[in-house]
């Protein structure tokens, strides 16, 4: 029987803010993900082997190595130049990249924005700042792209550790009104009020 070392789950995180990149990197590394951070959509595409001006033709960009293969993309929505939405579109338009799940992060909960992203194929739309609980909620949706049984146990233990330390009372208002919206599967249909 072949004993294969499981390559760690590789996340590409995209955000123009260095503070945000530092935070998200720590969060992901603490959860045992392998992380690459870039500061723009165009750098993300470059990393993924897709040049902006190239047509999305599978044969024109290099097959990337198993070690660098990206299993999840987490991107900020609001970025100068290429937005997270634009990046999402480009990824979903690419035959080589469209199967990589993309998660959008935003500091604002705008229903029309959420709908747009989910309709374009985003796996989830989370409000910043990203938390361990967001990753735990996301994890079941990722297992279809890669077998991540160890991750599941890790999240469970992390959540257990978190709840022991926090001991938050039920019904206690989250002071920064953090809400997670739009985790797909079944697809969330949001009706914008405006």
């Amino acid at each position: 029987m072949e004993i294969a070392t499981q390559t760690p789950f590789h996340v590409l995180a995209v955000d123009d803010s260095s503070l945000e990149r530092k935070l998200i990197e720590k969060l992901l590394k603490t959860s045992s993900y392998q992380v690459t951070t870039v500061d723009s959509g165009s750098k993300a595409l470059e990393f993924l082997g897709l040049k902006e001006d190239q047509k999305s033709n599978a044969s024109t960009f290099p097959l990337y190595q198993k070690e660098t293969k990206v299993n999840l993309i987490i991107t900020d929505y609001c970025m100068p130049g290429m937005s997270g939405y634009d990046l999402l579109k480009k990824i979903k338009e690419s035959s080589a990249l469209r199967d990589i799940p993309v998660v959008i992060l935003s500091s604002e909960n705008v229903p029309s924005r959420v709908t747009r992203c989910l309709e374009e194929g985003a796996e989830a739309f989370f409000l910043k700042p990203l938390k361990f609980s967001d990753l735990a909620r996301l994890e079941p949706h990722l297992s279809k792209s890669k077998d991540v049984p160890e991750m599941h146990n890790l999240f469970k233990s992390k959540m257990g550790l978190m709840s022991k330390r926090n001991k938050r009372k039920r019904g206690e208002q989250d002071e920064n009104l953090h809400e997670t919206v739009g985790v797909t599967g079944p697809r969330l249909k949001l009706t914008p009020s405006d």
Partner: protein
Amino acid sequence: MDVSMLQRTYSDLLTSLFREGILNQQFTELQQLQDENNPGFVFEVVSLFFEDSGRLINELISNFNQQAVDYKKIDAYVHQLKGSSASIGAEKIRSVCQTFREYYDKNDIQGCYNCIQPLNQEFVTFKSKLEALFTLEQQIVAAGGSIPMMRH
């Protein structure tokens, strides 16, 4: 100074920061990300915030002092500041940024203007309190003690 006195001072300061609404739960999330492998994590992140935000606020103030104020530009700065303050749990700063943006959305220039001084003040307060907190941490560690865990 006695380690337990330092620890007590630290706990009291941290508790008051939460009680006064200067910090929120997100700061605790940051503390939980810190571990033996990366003991300076919170300090590094908050230092980054001091740098970035200090710069942003200076830009904000100098933009406001110009003949023709570019409110769109200012709103963009405030948007950034709101995001980063939310990410580290700087609740009061985040809150003033939110108020500013609400005034901006209503084209209430006076309202916007009235937020600038409080924003600067909250930043100055936040910086001095967090610096005091980090100094206490250093003193506790130097005296051979451990940093008390925050209990909510």
